């Protein structure tokens, strides 16, 4: 009913320069919470503004609810937007701010008041705040007024441009879940832009990862985490970031830090097809398990690794450079043996080793990703 479709949408700022958004194809279902995530300059905000009508399209089209809105004025697209800096009107009261769009639509005063009060109730905004001016509100309250201004319009699509980035960390975490829950309750299609991948993972039904104006992958958070389609997505999603190390291909796997990481046959075949001698190995910090032995001997927690057609775990050893205490966990910065480079491993906070200590990690082959060093594409396993 009110899905959103980007069909080959492009935006080029200066002729000849590379596009800010390059032929974006994205299908957002009705009622879905879609997060656009990516680093600065990835085109996510531009894509959102194109949907809002604040940026013209230089190619392709955008559809809302099946209707081509590429040439439609922002006010006629039946959308509402929450800006990063809230953009509240400083001379108007909160109630006037929230009711402004309705006033422009010539909605009757009583109906306006009713909808404003309803939105304030949904957002837990006290009635006393309605007559105050924005400068008398805290940052969190202003953010809620900005959201209220969008809710009051009962649009087909919500657009949110990094609405949490101006809040302090604790408030951000709190508001994050409130927004997600609110969207679930209202069921309005939402397109949410952020650079914070934690926000993206926790809030979105699906997440679209953008880089350099191109869509890298659009999938559920779990899918992005478990099956990144290229090196960029793998390194972007997950905190702390996935360890990416170049490794030379050898028989049966790739050599890293003096050990051979076994690779599945399809992966090796893909590498051979691309005529690669080196690949990029990706291992998440949480998949590096501290082990006591030098070989695949069981430590107290791990079960015996099955032999046979299954690949056996590899062991990487190195020296601890730095320990970052997080409380429940600790992050170990380790320099791998044999010039293997520096990696980060996550361990339990209580049993973490000290800097300078030699440690070894066991890595399950299933947890290892392989990427083409030139293109970044994942070598299918």
């Amino acid at each position, binding site marked *: 009913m009110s899905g959103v479709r980007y069909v080959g949408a492009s935006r080029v700022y200066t002729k000849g320069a590379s596009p800010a958004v390059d032929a974006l194809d994205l299908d957002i279902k009705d009622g879905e919470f879609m997060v656009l995530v990516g680093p600065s300059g990835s085109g996510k905000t531009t894509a959102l503004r194109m949907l809002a009508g604040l940026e013209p399209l230089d190619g392709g089209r955008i559809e809302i609810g099946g209707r081509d809105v590429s040439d439609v004025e922002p*006010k006629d697209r039946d959308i509402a937007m929450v800006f990063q*800096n809230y953009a509240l009107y400083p001379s108007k009261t909160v109630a006037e701010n929230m009711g402004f769009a309705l006033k*422009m639509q010539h909605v009757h005063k009583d109906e306006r008041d009713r909808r404003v009060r309803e939105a304030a109730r949904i957002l837990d905004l006290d009635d006393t705040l309605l007559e105050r001016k924005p400068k008398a509100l805290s940052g969190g309250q202003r953010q809620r007024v900005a959201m209220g201004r969008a809710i009051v319009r009962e649009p087909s699509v919500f657009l949110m441009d990094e609405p949490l980035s101006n809040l302090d960390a604790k408030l951000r975490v709190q508001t994050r879940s409130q927004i997600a829950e609110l969207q679930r309750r209202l069921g309005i299609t939402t397109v949410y832009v952020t650079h914070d991948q934690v926000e993206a993972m926790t809030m979105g039904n699906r997440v679209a990862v953008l880089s350099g104006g191109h869509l890298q992958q659009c999938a559920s958070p779990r899918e992005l985490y478990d099956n990144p389609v290229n090196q960029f997505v793998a390194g972007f999603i997950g905190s702390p970031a996935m360890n990416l190390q170049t490794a030379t291909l050898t028989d049966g796997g790739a050599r890293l830090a003096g050990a051979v990481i076994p690779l599945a046959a399809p992966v090796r075949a893909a590498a051979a097809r691309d005529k690669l001698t080196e690949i990029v190995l990706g291992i998440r910090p949480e998949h590096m398990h501290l082990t006591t032995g030098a070989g695949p001997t069981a430590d107290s927690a791990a079960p015996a690794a099955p032999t046979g057609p299954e690949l056996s775990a590899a062991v990487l050893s190195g020296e601890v450079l730095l320990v970052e205490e997080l409380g429940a966990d600790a992050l170990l910065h380790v320099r791998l043996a044999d010039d293997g480079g520096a990696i980060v491993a996550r361990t339990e906070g209580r049993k973490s080793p000290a800097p300078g200590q030699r440690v070894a990690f066991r890595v399950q082959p299933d947890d290892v990703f392989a990427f083409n060093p030139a293109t970044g594409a994942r070598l299918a396993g």
Partner: protein
Amino acid sequence: MTAVTAGDAPAPTPAPVPDGRRRNRRAREISGQAGWTVLGWVVGIGFFIPVLWMVVTAFKPESAAETWPPKFTFSPTLSEFRLVFNGMDPYIEHSAIATVGSTIVVLVLALPASYALSIRPVGKWRDSLFFFISTKMLPVVAAIGPLYVIALKTHLLDNIWLLIILYAAMNLPLAIWMLRSFMLEVPSEMLEAARLDGAGRIREITEVIMPVVSPGLVSTGLICIIFAWNELFLALNLTVTNAATMPMFLISSVPQEGLYIAHLSAAATVASVPVIIVGWIAQRSLVRGLSMGAIK
């Protein structure tokens, strides 16, 4: 860590050496600050003394006025003020009309112009801006000849409307620059939000831009008032009696025969009062407006 004592005391005093150095530095800081403060006051008072003298002289009778060194003890009289109030009637009226009239014209014209140069810039807006400011580069002395001829041919000599038009032209570039810098302060996100909310151009100006810009509007208007009120050259050359302004009344106190210092002082004091009041009210926004014009 040996103490460097000055000459006579051979007995080493234990602790105070590092403290003493710190005390010295602190003392130097304070005396430095005090020095700058004193200098600031001296300069400020130096600038203010002539004005003070003028106000004081205004209360003197003419006979006691021209003395050197200036007398600060005398019996004050309002006789000169009475003369001024009697004589200034048409002048102050003309000044008021020319000032207020020209400022209204300036604001009415500068608002849309600065909008077109800031929020929705037209093509070649940089050239337009430069053109506006370049009109201030021409010395008015060079322009007075042609202006006189034009005024003569259009039968506007000694006409208050001539002054309104010319003062408006004189102040317009400054007003456009100032208003533009205030309008640039309006956050673009707020304008986008208004656009999304469905505000057309008029509503955008009245509901969003004006409330944010109104302090700037006030200070721009006040600056235009100050400049128009004090303008002498054009008024002197293009008017005689029907449109003569206060500055002309002031110089009428400087006739060929002699210097009526007390009368002049009284007239100058009266002429300055409106401008001082205006400047006092607007001082904070004046500084803000002028310095912002410099930054942007």
